[in-house]
């Protein structure tokens, strides 16, 4: 569960992460390279766009807002507190993704902490900071002692659990008072998504959603390396599992990556073999129209897909592939999200000509690969299936497995809205390439010391991927080379995406700019393919978007049972024929209880 939640946060994070056209530098060895590329990128964008000074509109608004009279919600949101307000927060620490963040910048000295104090009179206080991989345990230990921060993010299990214990502040009033379109675009972007966070009509959290389509998977191929097995055009890329296997067999016999060795592995693999959205087996499960989780409506009843018999087929196939040596023999010992992950460094080093992943992987880690190996030519191949047609796609009815919440002892829950809006304004203003070009060195240092991952909330708008894709591609087709403030949609991603396009136009060799451009904007890129997939595919929905009581206590063990069994089956330790035993165990250990609760809930909302 933790991995999954983390993957969710991370994918959202990576989305937001590319503000200044910077690829994430989690690959470790790529940071110097991408830092250089980033310098270049900013110069280019400053050349391309004449500097535009008039971006202080929000500041002006804030000033006039402090005058007497009718205030708009936006003005109220930016109104500083009269008395200093302490907000206690905690942090799952990750290094800043922005390579230009000054070395000596710490969470406590970051720009948000400084400016929230100066401009909003809010003191952000870090009660504790734990490394990302230790966060869940640290949080559990602190919770056991009854300590909750004022503002923090939780997964859906913790969310339900904390609501039951009365651990969360009621946000209903504050939300009504401070709701505005820009904020709603983040946590209430369509169909009253925010209701997911309501219990008995009271609002306890702000769901941090993603575009449901982001759950789709894709296949990335490095055409430069595939040339060695005779694939020279994208038409030749495999469409079916059989063709794919044929290609892998050829790669097994070819030294396609020039490392002097023939043989596997030819595919990356990771311990959380679905849901990491990078180097996992998701596309293969999808090819068989199977899913390792999710509750779909079958004849009016919810049915759990993670125990469905159809899973035997992909498991059998993956086991065959394991035996053939497509994956590392000890793949379950490695995780994409480990610090200094071997899986990632192998991808960056160009060991794999095929990388399964989500729409964002060009922006990390393929961009790092492109920086190290500029001749890499990554393309997205057809979604795999059994017969070559687009398989069914499962989407969540509501996404939002992470919630921004206020602890029960928080005296100013409305501060969440103020901080989020402040961040939105700050980011939108400063990520504009024109504004950045006009920055003095000090201002630039301040901007790069704004590290969004160190804040207890995200301001990612689930719709921005599509909005930005459409807006920018429209501008490109009209031959525009600049976009004015007014034309720009208000989201934290827009200017970064636009800058990456400008840089990429100027210098297609720039790996970092390519990463952002190819993931977000290219007509054959990640987002384009993601949209194409959900538009063409038959869609079934994962209907369950609440956490039932039994899920809180049982789902951890159940997920472990499932993951352990499937891993063991892929590795050939457990025969696939024992799938039925697994299903029995799953049901007996609480699966039936969860199914019953899920269906009771489902009947009540239908």
């Amino acid at each position, binding site marked *: 569960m933790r991995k999954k939640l983390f993957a969710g946060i991370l994918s959202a994070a990576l989305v937001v992460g590319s503000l200044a056209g910077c690829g994430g530098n989690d690959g470790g060895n790529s940071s110097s390279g991408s830092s250089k590329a980033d310098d270049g990128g900013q110069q280019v964008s400053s050349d391309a766009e004449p500097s535009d000074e008039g971006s202080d509109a929000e500041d002006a608004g804030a000033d006039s807002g402090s005058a007497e009279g009718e205030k708009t919600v936006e003005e109220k949101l930016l109104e500083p507190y009269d008395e200093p307000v302490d907000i206690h927060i905690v942090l799952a620490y990750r290094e800043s993704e922005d390579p230009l963040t000054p070395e000596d910048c710490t969470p406590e000295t970051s720009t948000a902490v400084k400016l929230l104090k100066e401009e909003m009179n809010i003191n952000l206080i870090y009660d504790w900071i734990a490394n990302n991989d230790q966060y869940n345990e640290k949080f559990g230990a602190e919770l056991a002692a009854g300590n909750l921060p004022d503002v923090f993010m939780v997964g859906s*299990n913790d969310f339900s659990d904390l609501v039951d214990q009365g651990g969360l502040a009621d946000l209903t009033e504050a939300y009504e008072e401070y709701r505005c379109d820009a904020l709603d675009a983040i946590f209430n972007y369509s169909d009253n998504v925010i209701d997911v966070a309501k219990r008995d009509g009271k609002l306890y959290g702000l769901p941090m959603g993603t575009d449901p389509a982001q759950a789709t998977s894709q296949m990335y191929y490095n055409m430069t390396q595939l040339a060695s097995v005779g694939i020279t055009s994208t038409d030749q890329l495999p469409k079916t599992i059989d063709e794919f296997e044929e290609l892998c067999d050829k790669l097994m016999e070819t030294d396609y990556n020039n490392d002097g060795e023939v043989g596997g592995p030819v595919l990356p693999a990771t*311990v959380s073999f679905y849901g990491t959205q990078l180097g996992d087996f998701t596309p293969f499960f999808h090819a068989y129209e199977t899913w390792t989780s999710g509750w779909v409506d079958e004849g009016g009843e919810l049915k759990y897909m993670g125990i469905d018999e159809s899973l035997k087929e992909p498991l059998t196939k993956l086991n065959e592939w394991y035996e053939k040596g497509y994956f590392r023999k000890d793949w379950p*010992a490695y995780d994409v999200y480990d610090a200094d992950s071997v899986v990632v460094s192998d991808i960056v080093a160009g060991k794999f000509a095929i990388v399964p992943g989500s729409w964002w992987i060009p922006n990390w880690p393929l961009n790092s690969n492109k920086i190290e190996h500029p001749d890499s030519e990554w393309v997205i191949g057809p979604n795999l299936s059994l017969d070559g047609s687009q398989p069914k796609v499962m989407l969540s009815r509501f996404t939002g497995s992470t919630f921004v919440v206020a602890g029960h002892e928080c005296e100013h829950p409305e501060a969440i809205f103020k901080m989020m809006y402040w961040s939105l304004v700050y980011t939108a203003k400063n990520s504009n390439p024109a504004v950045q070009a006009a920055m003095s060195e000090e201002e630039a240092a301040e901007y790069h010391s704004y590290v969004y991952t160190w804040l207890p909330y995200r301001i990612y708008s689930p719709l921005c991927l599509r909005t930005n894709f459409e807006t920018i591609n429209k501008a490109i087709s009209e031959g525009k080379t600049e976009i004015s403030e007014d034309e720009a949609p208000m989201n934290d991603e827009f200017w970064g995406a636009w800058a990456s396009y400008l840089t990429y136009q100027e210098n297609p060799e720039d790996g970092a700019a390519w990463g952002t451009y190819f993931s977000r904007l290219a007509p054959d890129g990640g987002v384009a393919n993601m949209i194409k997939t959900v538009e063409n595919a038959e869609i079934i929905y994962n209907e369950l978007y609440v956490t039932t009581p039994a899920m809180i206590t049982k789902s951890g063990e159940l997920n472990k049972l499932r993951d352990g069994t499937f891993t063991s089956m892929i*590795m050939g330790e457990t025969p696939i024929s024992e799938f039925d035993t697994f299903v029995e*165990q799953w049901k007996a250990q609480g699966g039936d209880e969860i199914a019953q609760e899920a269906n009771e809930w489902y009947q009540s909302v239908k």
Partner: protein
Amino acid sequence: MKEKKPAVNKPEKRKGLYRTRELHVMLVPAVVFTAVFSYLPLFGLVMAFQEFKPLLGFRGSSFVGLKQFQYIFTMPSFKIAFVNTVIIAFFKIILSILVPLVLSLMLNEVTKSWYKRAVQTIVFIPYFFSWAILAGMILEIFAYDGIINNALNALLGNERIAFLVSNQYFRSIIIASDVWKGMGYNTVLMLAAITNVDAALYEAAQVDGAGRWKQVLHITLPSILPMVAVLTVLGLGGILNAGFDQILIMYNPTVEKTVDILDTLVYRMGIAGRQYSAAAAMGLFKSVVSIIFVGISYLILYKKSDYRVF
């Protein structure tokens, strides 16, 4: 050994207490430590009988009787962890006696003292490193492209073994690395015991025509046997302590089947999974089993070698 009783008459007891006052002062930190970290938490065990919600506290959480115990005893991962714990701890106890025993006997026969000291020191070094450091090294060594596999590959051709995800090998790696890490300590203990053996016995044996081997067999071994017995029986109390930090750092989900132990399961359930009550129940169960074993070992020691812990 709370109090060292000086051989004095009763009226002089106060005087004796006064005379050993420095010793008692030195005991204070240990007593406070034990009280705060071992006795005080006992009250927390009440949560094993509750559906504990931390924000509601002990008073607010509802009592559920033995429900948590029912829950953990029907949990398959509990059974697996219990069996693993016993197996791993058993081998660790036995091997951490046997290996140092052999090692110390061998070292004792070494005549070059610089060599003996060097080996003794080198063997002792891993004892001082934390598992956080050693685990990284061991995982690296046993990795698919690590030293061991490279050696195997060179010697046997294309034969690599995925040790780290192998349910066949990983438990042995856990046990062996723990024995390796701790063997220096027990070796030194046993060497000390060997040095205390009366030299006259060896001389007498030599006169009787016993060679080196016979001397070891008939003098050294029997002389240090009480020491070995004490170490073994004391180890029994820790039969359910199979090395939490080592395993937490080294294991991965694939090998949970063979190396998941009660402590790691408690950690995952309680801290990571927020099931505080079930984890507390499991911890209580572990304590009860441990106390039984401690009792047995106490009895054995008392009966056989008159060694008294209390």
